[in-house]
C-alpha cells in the first residue's frame, strides 16, 4: 500500500461521506517497507496537483518520516534543466516507494479500523456498517 494511495483513500462508510474527518485515514502500528520503483517524472507532475499536501504532511509525521515543507512544491521545482530535480526524486521515494506492509488504518470520524495484511487493506464492510 503506497503512501500515494493513502492520500486518496477515505473511510468506506456512507455515514462518513459527509464528514471531513474521514479523510485522511490514520495509520496505526504500521510496518513500512521500501520498494524500488522506476522513476516516472511525468506521472508525478500529473498527480501532484491532486495530492492533498496537508494530509501528506500529517501522514508523514504520524509514520515518523522526515518532516515535509509547508507548501506543496509547484511544477517549476520538479525539473531543473529537463532533469528530474531532487525534490521530484524525494517525492517519488515518499509517495511511490514507501509502502505500508501491515498495520491498521483508522477513520477519524467513526473510528472504524481497516486492517492491512501483506500490503493489502481490507475494506470489506459488514452489511450493518455500509
Amino acid at each position: 500500500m503506497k503512501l500515494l494511495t493513502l492520500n486518496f483513500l477515505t473511510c468506506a462508510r456512507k455515514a462518513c461521506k459527509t464528514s471531513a474527518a474521514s479523510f485522511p485515514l490514520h495509520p496505526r502500528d504500521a510496518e513500512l517497507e521500501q520498494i524500488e520503483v522506476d522513476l516516472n517524472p511525468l506521472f508525478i507532475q500529473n498527480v501532484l496537483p491532486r495530492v492533498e499536501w496537508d494530509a501528506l504532511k500529517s501522514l508523514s509525521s504520524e509514520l515518523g518520516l522526515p518532516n515535509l515543507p509547508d507548501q506543496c512544491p509547484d511544477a517549476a521545482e520538479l525539473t531543473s534543466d529537463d532533469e528530474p530535480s531532487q525534490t521530484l526524486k524525494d517525492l517519488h521515494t515518499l509517495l511511490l516507494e514507501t509502502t505500508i506492509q501491515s498495520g491498521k488504518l483508522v477513520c477519524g470520524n467513526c473510528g472504524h479500523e481497516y486492517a492491512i495484511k501483506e500490503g493489502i487493506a481490507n475494506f470489506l464492510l459488514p452489511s450493518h456498517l455500509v
Partner: protein
Amino acid sequence: MSRPEEILPPDLFYNDTEARKYTTSSRIQNIQASMTHRALSLLSLPAPSLVLDIGCGSGLSGDILSSVSPADGGPHTWIGLDISASMLAQALDRDATIDGDLLLADMGQGVPFRAGSFDAAVSISAIQWLCQAETSDDVPQARLRCFFDGLYASLRRGGRAVCQFYPANDAQREMISAAAVRAGFGAGILEDDPGTKNAKLYLVLTVGGGDMEGSNGGNGDITGVVKGMEGVDVEDSRRKRERAVGGKRGRLAPERTKGSKAWIVRKKEQMERKGKVVKANSKYTGRKRKIAF
C-alpha cells in the same frame, strides 16, 4: 453451462483453486489482455495517469496498465479493487511483482476514495457480478447505484471509465446502463463483434462529456470518444426523441407515430387509393400481439 455469477457470490466462487485456474489459464490471459488493450485505446490517456482497476482480480489487467510504453502515454500507476481474497493472494504469488496497490473491497458498497482522485477507471469482466442479489438484504439496483455514484465522484472532471462486462441478458445490460446514466455519467456501449458468440460489450463512461479536451474543441458528447476510431458505427438512440420533440406542438399526432393503429389505417387507405389489394379493417387491425414463441 451456467454462468459463474449464477453459481456463487464472487468472493466464494473465486476460491483458491478457481483463482489459480483463472490466472494460469493462457486462454483467459489472452482474452483479458486483448480486452484491456481495447479499454486502454478507448480511454486514450495522454500521460502517465492514476487509474482505478475495478475487479482487478489477480492483476492480469493491472500488468498491462503498468507496462504501457511511454510512447503510448504510459506507464500508469493503478489501484485495484477486488472482493475475492484468493484472487488478490494469487496476485501476490505470481512471479512478476505487482506494481499496483490492491484493496480487498466490495464495489457494490461504494468506491472509498476522495472526489476527483483518478484520471481514469477500467473494469474487465467484473460489473455483471453486481446484478446478482446474494442475500435477502441485497438490492442489485441499490448496489449498482452505489457503485456508479462512488465511481463518478472518484473520477476527476474530464475523466473516463471503460467497463467491459458480460450481461446475462438485455435486462441486465439496461439495468447497468441506466444506473450509470442516473449517476451522472455520459454513457455509451461499444459492442465488438456484434451478434457473434464472441461479442464483447464495453460500457464507456465520461465525466462531463466525451471529448472535453479533444482537439476539435469537443462537443461534450459521449460519441466524441469513438470519433476517429476505425470500424466503429455509431447508433444514436437519442436522435429519435429529439425529432419527436421538434414538432410544433411538442407531441406528434397519432397518424405520425410509426406502427400505431392510426398510422396503419392511414397507410392502408393510401394503398387502396393507389389501387392495391388491401384487407378490410377490423377490430384486429394493428392490435398488439402476444408473441408466444
